[in-house]
């Protein structure tokens, strides 16, 4: 082989290898197909429209509500009257809303959590577990007015006379905070049940086995290990359920009497109030609106704004709870 003398031959110029397909030069809308552009624009438009609707509701109700809402309105009892300035405030509906929500959720949470624990942790015989699940689905899908009418039929039975009051003729009235609250619990129950069931199913089986292997019974494992872990999801479900109860009108109109003031039955202070009738913000808004008997639209706006605030607060609470849960996982 002949040795080359002098400077080595220049290296051939280095070319970067050709890419298999040309790199995209920026993901610009202009390079998209027309159909993709249309879909993209539609998605944006729908999202913005929903935001606009929400904002419109909140802003409009806020403007109208704040216009009429004042301290006196919030803390004075409603009165029957023909002129607007004699009809009083919305204290009773606010109290009614709070009381009814508390009764409903206090009944719904234990029931729903117990049912979910049974379905997930025991669930034998399996057909019964399936029946419970579909039963709760049916309850979730039942319109609230149907639940209300059903409740009226139930609570007018003589058996449930202590829950409301008995008229002079012997007929049971069937309308009270207790009656409405127990039917309201049916409205909140599916949400709490679903949240609890999902949370229980997300706990790995190894956690349960670890506890069983320490010689703990199933019920002890549930109390000491599982329940503390699902406290937050249960809370989220309960708050969602409270939102549903706060917003429900049908049950209030049918089962709570939708009377303007909280009307006590008997002389016992708290129990008498619970056996009595009353109203919530929803029924108050309905009655005060031009559609109802009160014809006090300004007060309807104020009450609706208060209702909106309560619901927004509950949604916010769910959000915060959910975010904390994620932070706890990380």
């Amino acid at each position, binding site marked *: 082989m002949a040795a080359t003398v002098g400077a080595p031959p220049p290296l051939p110029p280095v070319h970067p290898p050709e890419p298999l397909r040309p790199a995209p030069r920026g993901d610009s809308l202009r390079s998209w197909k027309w159909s993709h552009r249309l879909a993209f624009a539609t998605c944006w438009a729908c999202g913005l429209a929903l935001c606009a609707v929400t904002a419109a509701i909140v802003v409009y109700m806020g403007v109208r509500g704040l216009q009429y809402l004042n301290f006196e309105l919030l803390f004075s009892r409603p009165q029957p009257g023909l002129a607007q300035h004699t009809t009083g405030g919305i204290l009773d509906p606010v109290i009614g809303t709070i009381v009814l929500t508390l009764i409903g959720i206090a009944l719904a949470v234990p029931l729903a959590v117990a049912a979910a624990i049974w379905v997930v942790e025991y669930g034998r015989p399996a057909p019964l577990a399936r029946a419970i699940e579909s039963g709760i689905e049916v309850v979730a899908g039942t319109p609230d007015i149907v639940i209300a009418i059903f409740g009226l039929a139930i609570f007018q039975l003589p058996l449930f006379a202590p829950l409301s009051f008995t008229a002079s003729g012997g007929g049971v009235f069937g309308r009270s905070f207790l009656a409405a609250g127990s039917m309201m619990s049916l409205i909140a129950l599916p949400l709490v049940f679903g949240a609890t069931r999902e949370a229980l199913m997300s706990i790995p089986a*190894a956690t349960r*086995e*670890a*506890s069983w*292997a*320490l*010689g*703990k*019974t199933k019920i002890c494992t549930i*109390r000491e290990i599982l329940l503390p872990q699902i406290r937050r999801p249960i809370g989220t479900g309960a708050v969602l359920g409270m939102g549903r109860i706060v917003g429900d009108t049908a049950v209030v109109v049918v089962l709570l009497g939708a009377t303007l003031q909280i009307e006590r039955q008997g002389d016992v202070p708290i129990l008498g109030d619970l056996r009595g009738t009353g109203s919530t913000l929803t029924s108050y808004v309905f009655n005060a609106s031009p559609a109802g008997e009160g014809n006090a639209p300004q007060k309807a706006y104020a009450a609706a704004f208060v209702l909106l605030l309560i619901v927004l607060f509950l949604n916010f609470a769910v959000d915060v709870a959910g975010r904390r849960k994620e932070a706890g996982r990380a």
Partner: protein
Amino acid sequence: MSAHDHVADPFLDDAVPPLPPPRRRIRLDREPAPVAEPNGAPQRRSRERRTGPPAPERMRVDRLSVLYGSHRAVKDVSLPIHAGEALALIGPSGCGKTTLLRTLNRLTETTAGATREGRVLLDGTDVEQFEVTALRRRIAMVFQQPNPFPMSIFDNVAYAIRVQNRKTPRRKDLEPQVVDALRRAGLYDEVADDLGRPALRLSGGQQQRLCIARAIATRPEVLLMDEPCSALDPRSTAVIEELIGELRRDLAVVIVTHNLAQAHRIGDKVAFMYLGDLVEYGEAVQVFEDPRAERTRDYVAGAFG
């Protein structure tokens, strides 16, 4: 109060700072743990080898079969489990080792469709005769994945000691027992400064030692371990292997492992299972160096599995 103590105590001088708490020495700090090659000339730490008279028999598995539905996961297995020894169950995946282990403390019966034939005896009594909760306090178990509960270190151990969910004994009275369990599991010195720390903040190896502490807190007679090191790094594995070597002086250890070298290091007796059958059972040296069965020889030589 502490200032007063300082003055009163003549041994505590300001010039001499108090000694740091003693740390448990980890083998790897001085020399790497020998990795025994199962098919070469195996090196074993001879001091770990149990010597002396044969240990008393703690458990006996007698013609045990376990079925999942119609699938027979364990077939007619009989073997003794001796106190003060470690029994290593080896074999390829899906050969029934874990099922056998879980049957010893009746954990298979929590699986739907599992049935059992034959007997498992603890001190001569069938395990079916015991209250299942009492049995599991005597036959503790450590799982493959470290699975501490999402509570504090203290509560994890205290939960195991308490009978069901009784609130008595109270935290204060439990503290000696909790500390003792953590100490025996070799974890105490690392966590002593704050037992209220969440257990899930510990490292994987620490979590597994917490699980061991939890398991041995009730002073069980048998400790079942289902591949306790398979989710851990080599250093934590070495710590836990050393720990098992210490623990088995007080109790019978049954350990399932895929790691032949580990079985060789810590097992006094080795049982080789294959497709649900117990192929070979014997002293670790005998099984690894002079296996009687063809399948055992192939397996320990790394030919299959």
